[in-house]
């Protein structure tokens, strides 16, 4: 009897140890996992798709959003196009053409977004903060479901959120800012991405956005979903600092592009060179 109880105890302990070690070994928790993760990390990833959603993504608006949309006036360009290159935030900043570069350390995947030189930090196998401070990239936690990295983001600042497209617009392969409807987000805005390799050189980032102040159903994005891998030198990240003194500058306050005489801009630049 004693022998039987001892064996039972040992078996239970063993099972508990197995369970505990299993929980502790969620993919993305150790350096050894670096060899087990899907290869998001070699080279970088470049979007060649529209950065805005087409009308195919449209879902019904809430009454609050419908009232906002009814009085919406289209914009000529996005805030990023103005002085200082204010970031549009997630998810548009990831789709602006310059590549994304993934990095890993146990418990974290980072994504360097070359356009704007911003970096997302995704906590792996972790929970959200009780009250995250608002940021333009949001607070992101992630975990692996098989070979798919599932990223859940909350805590957004004043990002450029696309509600949908204006009637009859958003049907071309590249949806432009004047075609789209942008608006404020609610307090519970949440984005869920499912990131996986379609093949060795193709990455899919499937995004669903939840905001019960805007949509009656989750908004399943069709924009910027596919990224192609750059190899070798082209896969190396570059610095990106908004610094040029452009001859053309978008002025959000006037909603128009301001043009300067290039001769005058050149004089200013050459004068600055002398100082």
């Amino acid at each position, binding site marked *: 009897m004693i022998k039987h109880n001892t064996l039972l105890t040992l078996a239970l302990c063993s099972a508990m140890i197995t369970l505990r070690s299993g929980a502790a070994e969620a993919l993305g928790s150790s350096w050894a996992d670096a060899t087990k993760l899907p290869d998001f990390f070699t080279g970088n990833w470049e979007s060649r798709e529209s950065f805005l959603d087409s009308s195919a993504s449209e879902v019904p608006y809430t009454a609050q959003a419908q009232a906002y949309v009814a009085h919406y006036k289209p914009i000529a360009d996005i805030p990023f196009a103005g002085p200082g290159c204010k970031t549009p935030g997630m998810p548009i900043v990831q789709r*602006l053409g310059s590549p994304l570069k993934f990095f890993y350390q146990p418990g974290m995947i980072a994504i360097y977004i070359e356009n704007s030189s911003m970096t997302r930090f995704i906590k792996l196998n972790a929970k959200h903060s009780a009250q995250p401070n608002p940021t333009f990239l949001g607070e992101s936690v992630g975990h692996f479901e098989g070979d798919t990295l599932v990223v859940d983001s909350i805590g957004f600042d004043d990002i450029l959120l696309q509600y949908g497209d204006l009637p009859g617009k958003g049907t071309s392969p590249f949806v432009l800012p004047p075609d789209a409807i942008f608006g404020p987000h609610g307090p519970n805005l949440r984005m869920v991405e499912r990131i996986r390799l379609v093949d060795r050189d193709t990455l899919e980032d499937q995004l669903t956005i939840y905001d019960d102040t805007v949509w009656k159903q989750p908004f399943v994005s069709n924009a910027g979903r596919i990224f192609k891998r*750059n*190899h*070798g030198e082209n896969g190396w*990240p570059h610095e990106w600092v908004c610094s040029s003194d452009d001859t*053309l500058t978008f002025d959000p306050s006037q909603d128009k592009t301001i*043009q300067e005489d*290039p001769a005058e801009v050149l004089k200013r630049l*050459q004068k600055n060179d002398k100082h």
Partner: protein
Amino acid sequence: MNEHGSTRLSGVSAVLLLASAALPASAHHSAAPFDMTKSVSMQGTVEKWVWANPHSWLYIRVVKADGSQEVWGFEAGSTGMLARTGWNAADMKPGDKVTVSAAPERTGNHIGLLNKVQLADGRLLSAGAGTPPPGATPPPPGAGSPPPGPANSAPSPR
């Protein structure tokens, strides 16, 4: 200066037209100021090559047939994307003779969206879209295929 417009889309301008649709993605402003159905080509002397983000800019001085001079500014891509296309900050310096091809600004201002630059040493820098310029070294064997170029897919915004 040789300036010409065309209502017929050439292969190059078709690519640029596609590019224009994508430009606002990372562009500091929309590509709306440029007439992507037209192309201007001109020879000039480099005044300044601004290697910067979100756009690099090339300023050249052009001497017209009557002896008068004009300063033209040409907008190019972000530094990272230009570098991936084979460009370098040291490619041009003040005093260099260049031949520029660009989509002109719609209202006649001396501004263009840069398509390609022929350098004095014969090298040709093209706007591309993240693809290697003509003559660039292909990726090493086993490195995988580069992303589709603008000729067979939607081009990358800058």
